[in-house]
C-alpha cells in the first residue's frame, strides 16, 4: 500500500492541528494522555467484544467473495463443499463459451461508451456548477445526483416505455443513454469534491501573472481537477459494467451484457462457470479499487 503514504502528511497535519487545539492548557493534554491506559484496564472485555463483533461483520462482508473463488476453482460439476481440488476447467469453459465471451465484449463496449459520455457530461456539469454559478445550481445538482437513490429499475422501465412508444427498438445508444444517466452522479460527485477542495488562489495567481482565462483553465484548473474526473470515470466504468436493472429492460436478446447473461444462466444452473465469470469480474473490481487508490486515494472518495 505505498500509495497510501501520499496521504500521510495531510492526515498527520490535521491530527496535529486537532492536538494543538486541545492543548491550550497543559492539564487538558495530561488528561488525554492518561485516559487510554486507564480505560484499557477497565474495558478489556468490552473491547474484546467490540473487536469480535467487527471481525464477524468483516467476515460476513468478505467471506462470500472468497467462497466464489473457491467454487470457481473446485472441479465438481455442482456446488460442493468442502472443495475436492483445484482446477481451471471452469475458466476454460467460461472463456470458451461464445455467449459469455460475446456478453463480456458487449459489456466492455457499453461500459467504455458510457464512461466516455458520463465523464464528458458529468465533468462539464461539475465545472459549470462549481464555477459558472448557473441559476438553480442546487436543484440541478440534486437532480443530477438523484439516480444514485432513485430505483434504477424505474429508469429502465421509463426508458423502455419511451423506446416502445417511439418505436425505435432497443438500440445501443438507448442502452448507453440509460447507463450514462446512472453513472453521471459518480463523476459529478468526485469532480465537485476536487473543485471544492481547490485553492482558488492558484487560479487568481495565474490571472495576476497575466494568463488569459482559457489559459488559466487549461494549465491550472484542468490538471488539478484531473484526479477527481479520473476517479469518477473509473467508478462510472465499473458501475456500468456491473449495471443490472437498466440493462434488464434495454438489452435486446442475443445482445446482452454480462450481468444479464450471468443472471439468465443462474436462473437454471449453479455450476463453476458462474464462479469463473464472477472471479473475472471481481478481479476487474479489484483492479479498479487499486487504480482508484493510485489516482486519488480511497479516502478522497469516502469523504464525499
Amino acid at each position, binding site marked *: *500500500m505505498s500509495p497510501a503514504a501520499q496521504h500521510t502528511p495531510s492526515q498527520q497535519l490535521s491530527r496535529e492541528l486537532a492536538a494543538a487545539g486541545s492543548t491550550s492548557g497543559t492539564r487538558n493534554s495530561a*488528561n*488525554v494522555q492518561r*485516559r487510554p491506559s486507564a*480505560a484499557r484496564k*477497565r474495558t478489556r472485555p468490552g473491547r474484546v467484544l*467490540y473487536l469480535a463483533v*467487527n471481525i464477524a*461483520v468483516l467476515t460476513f*462482508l*468478505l467471506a*462470500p467473495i472468497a467462497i*466464489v473463488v473457491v467454487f470457481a476453482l473446485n472441479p465438481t460439476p*455442482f456446488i460442493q*463443499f*468442502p472443495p475436492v481440488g483445484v482446477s481451471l476447467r471452469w475458466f476454460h469453459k467460461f472463456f470458451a463459451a461464445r455467449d459469455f465471451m460475446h456478453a463480456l465484449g458487449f459489456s466492455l463496449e457499453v461500459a467504455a461508451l458510457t464512461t466516455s459520455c458520463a465523464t464528458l*457530461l458529468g465533468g462539464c*456539469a461539475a*465545472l*459549470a456548477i462549481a464555477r*459558472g*454559478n*448557473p441559476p438553480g*445550481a*442546487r436543484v440541478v*445538482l*440534486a437532480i443530477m*445526483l438523484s439516480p444514485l*437513490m*432513485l*430505483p434504477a*429499475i*424505474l*429508469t429502465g*422501465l*421509463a426508458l423502455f416505455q*419511451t423506446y416502445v*412508444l417511439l418505436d425505435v427498438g432497443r438500440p445501443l445508444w438507448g442502452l448507453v*443513454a*440509460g447507463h*450514462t444517466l446512472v453513472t*453521471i452522479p459518480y463523476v459529478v460527485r468526485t469532480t465537485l469534491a476536487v473543485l*471544492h477542495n481547490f485553492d*482558488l488562489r492558484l487560479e487568481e495567481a495565474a490571472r495576476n501573472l497575466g494568463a488569459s482565462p482559457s489559459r488559466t483553465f487549461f494549465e491550472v484548473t484542468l490538471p488539478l481537477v484531473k484526479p477527481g474526473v479520473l476517479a469518477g470515470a473509473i467508478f462510472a466504468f465499473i458501475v456500468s459494467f*456491473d449495471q*443490472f*436493472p437498466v440493462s434488464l429492460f434495454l438489452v435486446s436478446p442475443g445482445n446482452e451484457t454480462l450481468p444479464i447473461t450471468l*443472471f439468465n444462466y*443462474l*436462473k437454471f444452473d449453479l455450476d463453476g462457470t458462474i464462479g469463473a465469470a*464472477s472471479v473475472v*469480474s*471481481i478481479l476487474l*473490481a*479489484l483492479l479498479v479499487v487499486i487504480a482508484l*487508490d493510485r489516482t486519488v486515494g*480511497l*479516502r478522497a472518495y*469516502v*469523504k464525499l
Partner: protein
Amino acid sequence: MSTAAARTNGLALFLLPSVLLFALFFFVPIGLMAVMSLLTGNPVVAPHVGFTARHYLRIINDPYYLEVIWTTIRIGLWTTLVSLLIGYPLAHWMARIRSRAGHAALLMAVLAPMLTGIVVRTFAWMALLSDTGVINQTLISLGLVIRPVQLMYNETGIVIGLVHIYVPFMVLTLTGVIGRIDERLEQAAENLGASPLRSFLEVTLPLSLPGILAGSLLVFALSISAYVTPILLGGFQVMTLPILIYQQISANFNIGFAAALGMVLLLVSLILIVAYNRVLGLVSGQHDLQ
C-alpha cells in the same frame, strides 16, 4: 467560495449537455410513464385511447397487489434493521481507528463488495445458503443437523443477501457522521467517570442519530427497489414490487399496469430521497454544494 459566488458566467453553459440528457432521457420518460399509467392502452398500437384510473384502482382493490407492496416494504425494513445493527460497529471502528493502514484496510473491505456486481454477490449467497451449499454441508458434516436447513427460497435468504449488498452504504453514511463527532466529548464523559459503554450510549449514539436515520433511509430506498437478489434468493417464491413490474412487461406486456406500479415505487422513493437529503443537510450543514 466567496470569489466564485459572484455572478453567472460563461462556464454555466457547460451544464447544458447534461441538462439536455436528463430532460430527454429522464424527465420525458418518467413523464411518459406517468401518462401511460393513466391510459387505457398503448397509443402507438391502439387507435382509441382514453384516460383511466383503472390501473391504480386495480392495485388498491386487489389484496394480492397490496400484499406484494407489503412484502416489499417488510423485506426493506428487515434489511434496514439488520444493516444498521451490523453496520454501526464497523462504521464506528472505521471512524475511530488510529492507524492509517488499518483505516485503509477497513475501507478496502467495505468497498470491495460494493464494487463486485450484484449478480456475482447473489451467486455467492446461493452457493452459501442452498441445500448443498457451504453452510448446510458444514452443519451436516458436523452432525448438528440431519437434513439441510432451508436458508433460501424464502424471505430470510433475501434479507441476508440484501444486507450484504447494502450494508456498505450504511457503513459509509454512518462513518461520515460518527467521524464528525468530536472525540473529546467522549473523553470528557469518561474523564467525568462514565464507563465507555455509558459514554457511547449517552454521547456518541445520540450524536450519531442523524447518520442512523440517513443510512436507514438510504438502505431502505435501495432495498425496496432490488430485483436480482429477491428473485434469485427468493427462488421465484417471493413476489416484490420490482419483480412484479418486470413480470408485467416480460410476461403480460401490460405497459400501463407496469407504469402504475412504477409510479407507486417512484412516489415512495421520492419521499425517502427528500427525507434523506433533509437529514444529511441538517447534520453537515454543508451537504451537496458547499
